[in-house]
């Protein structure tokens, strides 16, 4: 033991005597984490959030969240002598007069973009692999809340520098609040301390941005990770992996080194981006004033879909009896996002109700094995992407010389037509892949080698699957579930079934869910099929040993047979440990 280790052990003992920490550590250090590239998405989110906290804290030291008008005297010449809010002036100071300030600003902004992107893609991974199923529904809900908070964090941060773009975003936000029936007008006046833009909003949203939202995110991330810890990570199917174990690397040392190292990688990449790639050059936009706007202004990417909904919505408004309801704003900006996020949060429960599956799931689904879920996901993604097109309709129109009106009309139709088509398409693809899997299990996989049998027939050699692939494909057997039975309207004693209609709906939906599944073969059939394939592959060998093997090379594909080699193919096969 080196002296450092001795000191460490001393501290460890000191703490353990007071907290019993070794009880926890002994179990934790050997905790197993499965490995897969897609498990890094959540890590990226976590690490970029840490970078956000770090850089944001530096920014607070220099940023002045005030709307008091000052005359700019800093070193950015084009804006010298111009009146602007103190918030904007201090953001300019951060960019031009604080050494490294621009780097911090840009790192903060890049980290924010990466954070929201990582959270979103992480959520997709969870969705498509069914990782939200029992027992992980709570963590899914936390994830949806985190996504919402991430959007709020990004929007509130974007609003702080009080440049022309950020102010325009706020103006839109105010218009949206005002469109909420009954409470909208009052809500807007309370939020902004009066009329737009007022003099309070930046300092208000500042405390939301640096305290409220990050505090909530931090608390929820902590709970999120504690649950992952307690429930252990899910894993993809593979050899030796079951629903009752975790196969992977122990926390100490491999996972610790990989995850810890990955934090520095993410941090490093964000710093490189901050140094190399300009983001949000606020000095170009100029200070905010409510009567100017820059054309082609685009929000950060994660707001694009909301903008797209606002742009695509027809201009419906009702004015009756002294009141006005702005459907054109209220529906796309408040109602639909509300419905979308609620549906997203409830999804695990809806799916569980439809499938009637009450088991714990620790082995991830391959997306093809849950065709309806995958199709729902693809459908939603298509909807989202169409909205992105809507959010960029002006850019698309000018780039491709189209009319904005026709893009908008296209979207008004496409938003209803294309996603269902995407659903059907995705489901078909899944079922096709299922069929292929079934063939592989029953007949082995097609080697591409053609064999001429002694009686002249040509056949393709099938080979048994390797251990890994077979385990992956076979994993479906363990999770398959039959559709729910149709309920009886009266029970055996003739008493009416109270929940009959709900139960019947559930059973019907469950048929839709499982209906088209390509039946998985039984274990016995698979054994037989694989055995057969192995046999077929071996059938190739004697032919090669035959004296006329050389002539027949093209027909055997010549894979095993090396001309001039003395050994028979059987011997070569043995040399390779039976692998072709």
């Amino acid at each position, binding site marked *: 033991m080196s002296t450092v280790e001795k000191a460490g052990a001393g501290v460890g003992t000191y703490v353990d005597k007071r907290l019993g920490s070794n009880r926890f550590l002994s179990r934790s250090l050997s905790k197993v984490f499965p490995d897969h590239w897609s498990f890094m998405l959540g890590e990226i989110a976590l690490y970029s959030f840490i970078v956000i906290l770090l850089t944001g804290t530096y920014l607070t030291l220099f940023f002045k969240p005030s709307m008091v008008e000052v005359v700019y005297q800093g070193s950015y010449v084009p804006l010298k002598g111009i009146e602007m809010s103190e918030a904007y002036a201090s953001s300019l100071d951060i960019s031009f007069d604080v050494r490294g300030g621009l780097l911090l600003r840009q790192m903060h902004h890049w980290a924010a973009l990466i954070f929201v992107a990582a959270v979103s893609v992480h959520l997709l991974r969870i969705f498509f692999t069914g990782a939200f199923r029992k027992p992980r529904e709570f963590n899914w809900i936390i994830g949806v809340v985190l996504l919402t908070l991430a959007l709020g964090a990004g929007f509130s941060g974007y609003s702080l520098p009080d440049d022309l773009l950020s102010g325009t975003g706020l103006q839109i936000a105010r*218009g949206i609040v005002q469109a909420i029936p009954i409470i909208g007008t009052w809500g807007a*006046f*309370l*939020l902004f301390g009066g009329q*737009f833009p007022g003099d309070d909003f930046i300092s208000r949203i500042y405390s939301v941005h640096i305290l409220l939202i990050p505090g909530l995110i931090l608390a929820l991330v902590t709970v999120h990770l504690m649950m992952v810890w307690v429930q252990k990570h899910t894993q993809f199917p593979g050899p030796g992996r079951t629903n*009752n174990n975790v196969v*992977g690397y122990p926390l100490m040392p491999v996972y610790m080194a990989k995850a810890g190292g990955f934090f*520095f990688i993410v941090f490093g990449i964000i710093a490189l981006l901050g140094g190399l790639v300009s983001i949000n050059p606020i000095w170009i936009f100029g200070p905010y004033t409510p009567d100017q706007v820059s054309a082609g202004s685009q929000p950060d990417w994660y707001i694009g879909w909301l903008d797209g909904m606002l742009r695509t919505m027809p201009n419906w*408004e009702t004015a009756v009896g002294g009141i006005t309801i702005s459907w054109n*704003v209220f529906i796309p900006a408040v109602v639909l996002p509300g419905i979308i996020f609620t549906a997203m949060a409830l999804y695990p429960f809806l799916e569980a109700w439809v499938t009637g599956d009450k088991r714990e799931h620790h082995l991830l689904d391959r997306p093809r094995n849950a065709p309806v879920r995958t199709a729902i996901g693809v459908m939603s993604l298509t909807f989202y992407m169409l909205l992105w097109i809507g959010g960029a309709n002006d850019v698309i129109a000018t780039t491709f010389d189209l009319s904005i009106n026709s893009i908008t009309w296209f979207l008004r139709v496409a938003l209803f037509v294309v996603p269902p088509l995407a659903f059907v398409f995705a489901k078909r693809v899944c079922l096709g892949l299922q069929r292929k899997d079934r063939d592989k299990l029953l007949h082995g996989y097609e080697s591409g080698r053609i064999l001429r049998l002694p009686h002249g027939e040509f056949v393709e050699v099938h080979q048994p699957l390797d251990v890994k692939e077979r385990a992956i494909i076979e994993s479906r057997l363990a999770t398959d579930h039959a559709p729910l039975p149709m309920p009886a309207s009266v029970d055996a004693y003739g008493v009416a079934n109270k929940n009959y209609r709900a139960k019947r709906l559930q059973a019907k939906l469950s048929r839709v869910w499982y209906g088209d599944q390509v039946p998985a073969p039984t274990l016995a059939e698979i054994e037989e099929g694989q055995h057969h394939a192995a046999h077929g592959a071996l059938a190739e060998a004697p032919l090669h040993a035959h004296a006329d093997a050389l002539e027949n090379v093209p027909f055997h594909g010549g894979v095993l047979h090396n001309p001039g080699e003395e050994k028979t193919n059987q011997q070569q096969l043995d040399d390779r440990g039976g692998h072709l």
Partner: protein
Amino acid sequence: MTDVNTHEQSDHGSAGGRLPVADVPHKPRRTDVDPKAARRAERQVAAMFTLSVLFVILFVVAYVAIPKDANVYIPVLGLVGAMNLALGVTMGAAVFLIGAGAIQWAKKLMPDVEVVQERHEMQSAPADTAATVDQYERGKEESGFAGYKIIRRSLLGALALFPIPLIVLLRDLWIQPSDTPNPQAELETTLWRKGSRIVVDGTYTPVKATDLPVGGLISAVPADLEETQAEQGNQNARGKAAILVVRMQPDEIRSQQGENWDYQGILAYSKICTHVGCPISLYEHRTHHLLCPCHQSTFDLADSGNVIFGPAARRMPQLPIGVDDEGYLVALADFAEPVGPSFWERG
């Protein structure tokens, strides 16, 4: 290097013990079988950590040595601030290398055999559940929560009402001026009055009708805006009063919101979009279309400012204008309808 086989004699996942190796096909790595490769990996990792130190030193040097306003030309990036570039690259490299080193170490030199840990069902053992229920029942019993009906009800009432002060306290987020009955009153009026001179935004110079050619466009505000703004210390008045003044041939005007609200083909419209409030300035003088850059609502200024496309539901409010004794453009009254986004009480 750690011996990859040490996991094998493990007992079955007991706390702290070695975990069993997973039954997975496993190929040894170069570094497992070739001591030279292992040595090479070791040197690589150490080199990365050492380079990281170097970059930290370079960071400090750059911070001290590079002038704040120095720019450098970098292909692809263009002209960029030298300080930002140097700090970002050195800090990024320093941090990245620590990560790359650690991962290389883990991948090449730490064991790469997967181990197995058993899971346990999440649900508690029945005995634990029974004990919990028991304790709950005992608590209910001892506190008398079930028995003391009035206590229970009054407590629930008290708990339901106690957030009220927290909500009431939010009321003065808007300190309502004593002469303002409700928010609506503020949204319905702007700085424009009969006789307010129309001045060019930014320079505050008044506009003679003859200054504005047909097809011309100016962004304008009321003459007393500058003063009001200084007095109020915010941009609220500007947010409602901003207008666009355009001139077309009088016979091109198909309709307007009030009779003779133009002056010899000069029309004034609010600049604040009726959708959600972006200021508009994209004007196509041949078609007289006004396009909002935010969500592309399009208004026809030759036809009462009506919406011809896009998500906005209401026309752009028109400001009635004329000229004063000196020939300068003035407003004849305030807007007849509220400017900007709709709101519930608008009617």
